[in-house]
């Protein structure tokens, strides 16, 4: 996979992950053109696009478009399922995910993506394993917060 973009129906970029080294200028140009092309397509149309020399696979979930660019010989359907699996992972993690979750917690979305796809290839396809890895790291955060909450509790009992 060459890159993955998430953007809203209004064309606002929500997430971008590039697996090929490109300059910022090129990235912006590609994003702009691609968002335009994909948004112009009608709902019943094919999820695959030949765009420049890339194969674009996209899918819309509610107000959000997930869009992947792959090389010509890659299997389009499996890329579509990669998108779907990613959405499933987000859903499981956030608990019925919506666009706002991704906007406000985009770094989490990135962490999940990095556990799922690494360097453009599927790294771990088992849902359980991906989430386990994320939760392990998150656990630390909760520990940290946990200390704070413990303190709060202490304060409230004092009062």
């Amino acid at each position, binding site marked *: 996979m060459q890159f993955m973009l998430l953007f809203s129906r209004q064309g606002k*970029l*929500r*997430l*971008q*992950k*590039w*697996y*090929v*080294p*490109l300059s*910022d200028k090129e990235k*912006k140009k590609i994003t702009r053109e691609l968002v335009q092309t994909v948004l112009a397509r009608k709902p*019943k*149309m*094919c*999820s*695959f696009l*030949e*765009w*420049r*020399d890339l194969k674009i696979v996209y899918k819309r979930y509610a107000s959000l478009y997930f869009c992947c660019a792959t090389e010509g010989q890659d*299997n*389009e*359907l*499996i890329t*579509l*399922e990669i998108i*779907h*699996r990613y959405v499933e992972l987000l859903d499981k993690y*956030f608990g019925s995910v919506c666009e*706002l*979750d991704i*906007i*406000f*917690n*985009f*770094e989490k979305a*990135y*962490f999940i993506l*990095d556990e799922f796809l*690494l*360097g453009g*290839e*599927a*790294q*771990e*396809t*088992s*849902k359980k*394993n991906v989430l386990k*890895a994320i939760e*392990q*790291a998150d656990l*630390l*955060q909760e520990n*940290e917060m946990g200390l704070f909450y413990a*303190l*709060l509790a202490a*304060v409230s009992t*004092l009062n």
Partner: protein
Amino acid sequence: MSDVVEKTLTALPSLLSLDSQPGSAKLSTNSKLGSLIRGITELTSKHEEEKLIQRELSSIKEQVSSPNTTMRQMKELMVRTIYCEMLGYEATFSYIHAIKLAQQGNVLEKRVGYLAVSLFLNESHELLLLLVNTVLKDLQSTNLIEVCMALTVVSQMFPKDMIPAILPLVEEKLNHSKEIIRRKAVLALYKFYLIAPNQVQHIHNRFRKALCDKDPGVMSASLHIYLQLIQENPESYKDLTASFVTILKQVVAGKLPMDFNYHSVPAPWLQIQLLRILSLLGKSDQSTSEVMYEILDESLRRAEMNHNITYAILYECVKCIYTIHPKSELLEKAAKVIGNFVLSQRINLKYLGLKALTYVVHQDPRLALQHQMTIIECLDHPDVIIKRETLELLFRITNDQNVTVIVEKMLDFMSINKEDHTTADLVGKVAELAEKYAPDNEWFVETMNTVFSVGGDTLQPDIPNSFLKLLSEGFDDEEENKKLRLFAVNSYISLLQGEPSKLPQRFLQAICWVLGEYSHLREDVEPDLVLRLLVKLLNIKSTSSETKSWILMAMTKLCSGGAPLSVPLEVSETYSSSMDTMLRQRAQELQYLSQNPELQARVLPRGVSQEPMEVDSSLSFLDGFVSEALAAGAAPYKPPHQRQEELSRSKALSLEPYGLSLPISMSSCSIADRQSPTLLSVSSGLSGDRTDHSHKGGSTTLKLDGVRRVWGKEGYLAQRESAEETAPVEAPSPLQPLVQQGDGDASYSQTPTPIPECEQEKQQLASSLFVGLASQSSVCLMGKSEQTSQRFRRKLKDPAASFPSSTQNPLVSPPSSVGHLLLDSSISSDLISSPEQTHLSSVDLTVANGEVELPDRDMKGIKSTLLREDSALAAGSSPHEELDRPKDSCLTSHLPAELSGLPHSEITPLCTSPSLDLSSCHVQKDDSLVLLVFMKSSSDYDIQQIQVQVTCEELEVSCVCDSPVEELKSHGVVVCQYFLTVKSPSVYFVLSGMMSHQIPDNSLQETQFSHRIPLTSFLRPLRLSTEEYGTMWLAFSHDTKQNLPLMMDAEEPLTATLKVLKDKLQLHVVEIIGNEGIVACCLRQDQPCLLHCRVHAGMLAVWLRSPIPELPDCLLYHCQRALQES
């Protein structure tokens, strides 16, 4: 305690306010980010957003650089910066802080730091070097999460040259007890393999271990590496076929843990990866393919149609079945799957069905026939993507009978398509089809006209080039040629009489060339008329200056037809003061040649047999110029990538730690390399097949028995209902014709049932589209009726002589030999010191090639100089081939006895003075090169005190005897020896010499001369073992990479190519493994150069390394020449 309570209480309100904000609690953790996002959504204009973000960024900038900012705050700031960057605002100032955060933060902060780094930087960013230490530290951490983070970032980006620094640590992680670490380590190695394959060459056996890992995740990660390895070199991994098959069997049988199921399909990603690997292994290899038939059958069976994911697997199975050695049973099943796809109502599946059909149609054209009606429907599909794919399919089934309809469809599509990339691609395809299958001249020229006008300036430059080449080289039938050219001329004259300002520049250029070259074929048109049309074109504002020079050239050619001189003179006067030098040059030529008919006739001969001109693509005629410039102190040429690299190196601070001195290599090249001319490869593959089949078809009569007839002469015959195969769309109408099988004539009866009109239309279209596929078997598809398809196939006179690129030298056209006009003879004249050669007039169109001039200076002279140059180059391999030259042979006898057995170059004259002739040659000894200077007296008296001094900056010259030659008898010969060793390599070494001697009246006479020796004469094979090679390779720092042509026609391209290099340049081939070969040579024992050659995408990717900075580039030049010449 109370202190703590107090502090907490003060913090409480802010904490509570966070939680009470709208949205769920989880949105509140990044309060500042939250308010930023909310702030943005409230804005109404882009301008306001910009202002807000800029304000935000400057406040972030202030905070990140403040020393009081804690890492915790930094983490929050970094998240906001990532957000701003995603919105498209640059925040380069934060990059260094992201690295700092990754370095100094605790685990959580580190995580954000690493994320920011991976989003902000790419693998060629110089700041990435600062991350190396952090990664090193984290890889050694005892905290698993830190190790994971380090491996994650490494698998996404890592500076190529720093790989050796962390490689041992990553390798060690392959043995880690946690599978997640092992898996990430494997992926990191995969990344390393992609960006620097030879850095991980020595650990290939570790990959095997990963493949056998007990954890399925680790195992499937290792498949990424294997897919890549096998793609590059399937031969070396055939032994793994059985293992892959076993793994796939287990996966399909559901032996993996349930976790890996996806919508109750066992590990689909793994299945697809394995299928791709298997198809690579089984490609044109029967025995390997046989191993996998069973599991492919099983996979097909198991993948029941119910979900996208099973379709994905089925699609991959079908591709695999059609790629490996065919088995009819499987092909049948696969064809059925394709049928289901094509007929599916789901648009994604339909698309893939068409794609699969396109993929398999050259193997099984009948499949396209089965689905003809669906294909016709898809042609009118509302989704352009489907249409586009259908055209791709039609392109594959084009033959000389359906070409007009298919091309029409493609042109229709282009007229509605707006996207440049697609247009360029389709235009190329139309041009290819037109060239291959054109039914007649008119159609061909008209189609090409459309191609040029629609393609406009996005057109690939090779299309006009090959079109013009086809016109000029023509076919075997002269009469046909003339007709075609005449038609083109007619068509163009009328186009120019219309509105030429609307035509694209490339088209105009082609028109100009054709008119200049062939308008004389039309006898009823005065050249004056054509000239006037061209002048009109010149005066159009939009005409580019490149086109103008084409126009001027066309005029130059037209003038020879005896046109009145006034027009060209006027034009040439106008443009001879143009600011554009190219234009000015053309104007001068026009002026000069139109006034000098004699010269004109020589330069632009008309009606001569059009022998292809020999193009010296290595530009060896410039060697003299180059070596002179080098001798004068110019810097040696460096290929662009190297310049870029050096530029970036000199600009940037050296950020590399000490101890590792590997250079920054050209990661910038990788994108360019990736682009492969798919169009080209596709067409060549097709045509290759075509000749193959037409051979078979041509010798035997068409086999009609036993094959179902679907098509008659009149076109579409609806298919007979055959029990299970008929799909609903194939029998869309009540039409039930009776088809008589086996009968050659189309005797079929139609039922009287009325057919709906649109259906009828479709069937008509079908019959015109699929005609020619009719007579079954692949024979007819692959090029039935040889004469017709041959007719536009150009004569392959000289495949090497390609049409020169228009931008560089549009005047040079294959049939005429104007090219030499450009070569300034003055280049050579000042190089030559002997008096008789200095009177080279500037009109004389000689290419002087280096210092060694031959006496005759006509066109043949050029060739023979070239030849001599070549023979000098090839001296190492065929030292004696020139010995039969009379002049040489008399001097050969004077070779010193100890050198006579060794290979020596041709003896070439150096200079002459009234009384002395100097010639030289060089003899290759094992450790050095000996230059021999022969002094032959041509005078009747004895010459005394002859002294010859030879110097060269790049060479160490030591003379055997320093004392002057006391006396040379009348007509005698004396030989001087000089030992030469290389000080600093250069493509050619120019030795300058001075000879002095006394003539009888005691006055001293001096003559200067120069002699040129190519680097190749100094090259010696370096005999190494592979291990020695390996250690040396790592030790050398100066490297160069380039792609060289591969000898594709040989049976084993790599071996053949390396053999050429071995024979011509005396390189030592150390070892050839699969599609890689390692080669070594040296100048002296301490001046080695190593070559690593790899076959990649039809080219030979060569990577040279040497401790001598200039050596790789110089050697590369000679490799290139050697391969071009062979």
